[in-house]
């Protein structure tokens, strides 16, 4: 806002008649300022490429989005570059600015860290975070890990995809499609020194962007000098439900049931030797196996499910797969020992419990990612273990209704779950974090009835096991409780409000 007219000019002095100005004099010469939108020198050690976005220059035309889709041959619903809106102020001192974002090619890419199949690499020379469609199995875990909603799942292909900074074009000396298309020169590729950026990456933050702390985004944003302090996102009034991931709902509930059941079976077997527990063990093993067998249905490329073990060094998803597989194996052994009435069962049962608990722990850790605030709490751990205790105990209770303590264990599981859900809801509704508050608003809003039913079922699951020894009633209680937990896990998935970049108002909520 450098007005050539100063306030002092408003002392209205008569000005000289300007008839003498010749066209030549009046012509303002343009200084052709060379603008380099891509780096002109090679990268040095410790450096990488990054995007620079100038919010001052962006006029919100979305050329970058269209050009990106054309460059990458993506269908309209998938946008590796997106333009969001932020607003601030009061009319007429109101502002609406735009935010154009591709991938931030983070220093600590959470997509890469989470990937179970090592489909992601951070290019050692350019720092570009690359994704291999060949290696990808379509588990979509990266889409949960990224705080910016960058990786997007392409259902038609069964794999995710993301912005690769058009690094192949950069190598050829050509600008990325978005950079090339921008009529205002608002997008640029720069070189950044990674170590220095780690020390101070404040300019990776901007209104409408999640904190760069999650993964140290490398995108530098130039904000307008006059940006109003209340500038914020405009997409917060309508928060859509997330995808329910049905296969995962069943995988989680049934594996947790099985882990809980084996824990109870181990105790029963240890405390009251001679009980006929084999059928219970076989049934719960069966459920776990069905669940694990069904897990690949969640994948875009189920035939390649086996690859999920590759990332065990850093991915909780790989660890979950490993731990639950080990659990299934050990549990199978324990069941066999029950059938054959072999000695050493207390140890085998304990190992079953241990591997199962590790499995449930891995499941929970998998969901506890910064990009999904309502999952990223200890309530997730509590929820999963409560399910194990509630359903596992009820499951055994059906077959061994005479053991009162099993009923009490089930009630304790139900109570723990009720407490977990109540506290989680209250904490979220009081939170200063938008995504947490929004999650609680979904629970008390769009899915309120589901949430109330789920809580009601829990109350029943606490009371019923304590009042009955009838097999039929126990079985009914179990069925009810399983339904309740499935509903609960569905709520877990649909009510999470992920972090994301600010969306445009008209694109309807927070587009992936």
């Amino acid at each position, binding site marked *: 806002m450098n007005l050539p007219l100063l306030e002092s000019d*408003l002392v*209205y002095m008569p*000005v000289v008649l300007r008839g003498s100005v010749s066209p030549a004099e009046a012509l303002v010469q343009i200084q052709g*300022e060379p603008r380099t939108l891509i780096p002109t020198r090679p990268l040095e050690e410790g450096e990488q490429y990054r995007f620079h976005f100038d919010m001052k220059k962006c006029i*919100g035309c979305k050329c970058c989005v269209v050009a990106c889709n054309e460059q990458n041959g993506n269908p309209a619903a998938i946008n590796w570059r997106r333009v969001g809106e932020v607003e601030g102020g009061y009319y*007429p001192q*109101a502002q609406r600015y735009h935010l154009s974002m591709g991938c931030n090619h983070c220093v600590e890419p959470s997509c890469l860290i989470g990937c179970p199949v090592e489909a992601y690499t951070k290019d050692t020379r350019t720092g570009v975070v690359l994704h291999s469609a060949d290696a990808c199995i379509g588990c979509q875990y990266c889409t949960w890990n990224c705080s910016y909603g960058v990786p997007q799942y392409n259902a038609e292909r069964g794999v995710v995809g993301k912005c690769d900074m058009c690094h192949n074009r950069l190598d050829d000396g050509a600008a990325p499609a978005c950079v090339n298309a921008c009529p205002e020169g608002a997008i640029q590729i720069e070189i950044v020194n990674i170590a220095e950026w780690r020390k101070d990456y404040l300019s990776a933050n901007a209104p409408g962007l999640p904190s760069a702390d999650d993964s140290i985004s490398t995108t530098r944003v130039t904000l307008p000098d006059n940006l109003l302090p209340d500038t914020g996102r405009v997409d917060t009034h309508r928060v859509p439900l997330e995808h329910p991931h049905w296969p995962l709902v069943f995988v989680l509930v049934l594996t947790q049931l099985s882990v809980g059941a084996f824990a109870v079976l181990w105790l029963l077997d240890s405390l009251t030797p001679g009980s006929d527990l084999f059928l219970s063990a076989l049934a719960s093993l069966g459920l776990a196996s069905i669940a694990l067998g069904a897990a690949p249905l969640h994948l875009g490329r*189920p035939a390649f499910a086996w690859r999920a073990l590759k990332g065990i060094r850093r991915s909780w998803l790989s660890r979950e797969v490993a731990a639950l597989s080990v659990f299934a194996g050990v549990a199978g052994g324990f069941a066999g020992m029950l059938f054959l009435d072999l000695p050493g069962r207390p140890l085998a049962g304990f190992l079953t419990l241990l591997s199962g608990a590790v499995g449930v722990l891995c499941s929970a850790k998998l969901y506890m990612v910064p990009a999904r605030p309502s999952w990223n709490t200890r309530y997730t751990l509590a929820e999963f273990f409560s399910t194990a205790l509630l359903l596992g105990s009820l499951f055994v209770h059906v077959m061994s209704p005479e053991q009162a303590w099993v009923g009490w264990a089930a009630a304790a599981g139900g109570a723990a779950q009720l407490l977990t859900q109540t506290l989680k809801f209250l904490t979220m509704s009081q939170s200063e974090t938008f995504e947490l508050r929004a999650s609680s608003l979904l629970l008390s809003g769009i899915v309120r009835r589901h949430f109330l039913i789920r809580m009601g079922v829990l109350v029943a699951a606490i009371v019923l096991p304590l009042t009955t020894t009838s097999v039929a009633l126990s079985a009914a209680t179990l069925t009810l409780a399983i339904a309740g937990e499935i509903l609960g896990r569905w709520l877990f998935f649909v009510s999470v409000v992920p972090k994301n970049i600010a969306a445009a108002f008209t694109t309807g909520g927070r587009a992936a």
Partner: protein
Amino acid sequence: MSLSQLLGFDTLQKDYAFDRSASTGYTSAKKIPEKWVATTCGYCSVGCGIELGVKEGKAIATRPLASHPVNRGKLCPKGLSEHYIIDAENRLKHPMLRKNGKLVRVTWEEALTTLVEKFRATQTKYGADSLGVLSTGQLVTEEFYTLGKLIQLGFGTKNYDGNTTLCMASAVSGYKTSFGSDGPPGAYEDMEKADVVFLIGANIADNHPILCQCIEANPHKTVIVADPRVSKTAMMADLFLPLKPRTDLALLHGMAHILIAHNMVNREYVDAHTNGFDAMVEFLKDYTPEKVSEITGLSQELIYKTAFLYGRAKAGFIGWTMGVNHSTQGTATVNAINNLALLTGQIGRAGASPLSITGQCNAMGTRETGFTSGLPGYRKFDSPSDRAELAALWNVDEARFPAKRGLAYPDIVEATVANKIKALWIIATNPLVSFPNQDTLRQGLSNLDFLVVQDGYHPTPTTEYADLVLPAAIWGEKEGTYTNTERRVSKVNKAVEPIGEARSDFNIFLDVAEKLGCREELYPRWTTVEDAFNEWRKVSEGRLCDYSGISYDLLAEKGAVQWPFTEGASLETSRLYADGKFEFADRRAKLVCEAWQPFPEQPSAGYPLILNTGRTVEHWHTRTKTKEVPILERLSPVAWLEMNPRDAKLAGLRSHDPVDVVSRRGRVKGVELRLTEIVAPGQVFMPFHFFETNVNEVTQGAFDPISREPNYKQCAVRIERTGATK
């Protein structure tokens, strides 16, 4: 989805493969064409050079034409996805005639015979002028020229107008009354060379985004934007004038008042080149800063600042679009803009011009060659010498030209309501979305004996009303020229064959002339559009819009050039009136003053809000084309209503609530509410592209007395929660 895809063995690697080619670099393999065809974008009047990539006879990609002087290697999102409009689902592939109430496929022979028979029968029964024609700004110049002759000389009706009347007629009238002729005097380069860029009623960031780079490239600019809404363009301003709706004329008069009061008038220029200064001084006495501040809601300081910035500019540019034109005082407002330029001599120099940034890709073409508001070559209906000259050029009897223009667009619609026009031919426009106060239009159309709609797409809200629908080839399927806002003539080329049985509008006009029996008389030995262009060159020779030196060969060789362009003229950027000689008989411009009036329908207790209408960058006009482009629909899928949160709070409304917009004329149902501080309390804004929620159900049919342009931009409405009243 195949089993192999379901299991994950097939990830459509081929579809998503990348490749390198010399012309594209590294890119999606399916977007690499066999050849690129250079042409000009078919959306707006910026007139960007564009290349269409063709593979196996289909348009599969677009890219900016690097050598084109206008767009400097850039395109807007519509241009970047323009190839999707050609082979779209909604394209009309064969003629359709209404039989027993239903549109059924017919042959071209039957369609053309029916058209001519029905039009002739109507004219025989009700008189020649009972046939009306509504055309467009979307055809190529050659087609406009051909159509003008067909309508005036072939059918002999003078009731012919274009949808350009809904768009830039006020600019035309304003230029004519100030300078003696239509013709935008400036050039885009002016935005780059001016030290003050004043945009009034022009949201170029949404509507002409490619022009923003001219401003971005200007290192010495002060940008002033006047708009009642904090538009994307307002965000580019150094000085933003949030004036009250439709007070632009008062602001401009107030600026002129200050220029005079503070001795910033270029007397030498005014004395040498204008008439009416003394009367103007007298007239402007009323427009004191105090009074103008009261009218506009702007502080006196802002008004002074604006006047001083413009008055002291070495080169001052004023650009405007529909905020000015869509007004019952549109012509007067354009006059007031021209007055500022004349008072300060800010015209005809680099950086200095009053430039109407026009709408459609070839609105200029129809203004120059058409038979609507003037005779071809900016000749005037009421000038005997102009009529005689044209009659001689065409070797026809002068008596075949009317001495005054026929009905303008809204008056044609009125005439259908009054049963005076009984047959109508609508070409490449969609009034069932775009005309204000749709009720009147529907009533008029229902009175017709015969309605022909010629379009590239079907169904559209308008083709659904038609008795006969003619399938036209569209952009990319035909050849010709477009002329843009800065008078630059660009070649339009054919990249692919017309879809189905579609024919170019040019060929349709020739075919109709053939049936009418006047083809040889009107179009002697014509076979191609180039024949039309070459005749037009002769007709334009010596006129302000002189095309005589422009040939297809020259355009192919040198690229787009600006008129006037005589044989051997220079390719440098040109401006009109550089010599201070205007198009009136005495070669002096007129300082035209018209008193400011409030807009016609003021808010009231029942309708307390002022509705403003406009566009969004993703869509074009009535969305006939852009609806077919998936990425544009993705980015802008539905209409919305912007309302200030303070107003919404009173009504208990929240963002995303579905609301109805209600005026005295009608109701738009179920619009998504967007609460935002970029609109003023007391005002609401809605885009006009969406037929599903058509804002023109409520806009007012009030028209500028001279230009006949509708006052789209302001009317009184109330907002109700959808379903609140039955």
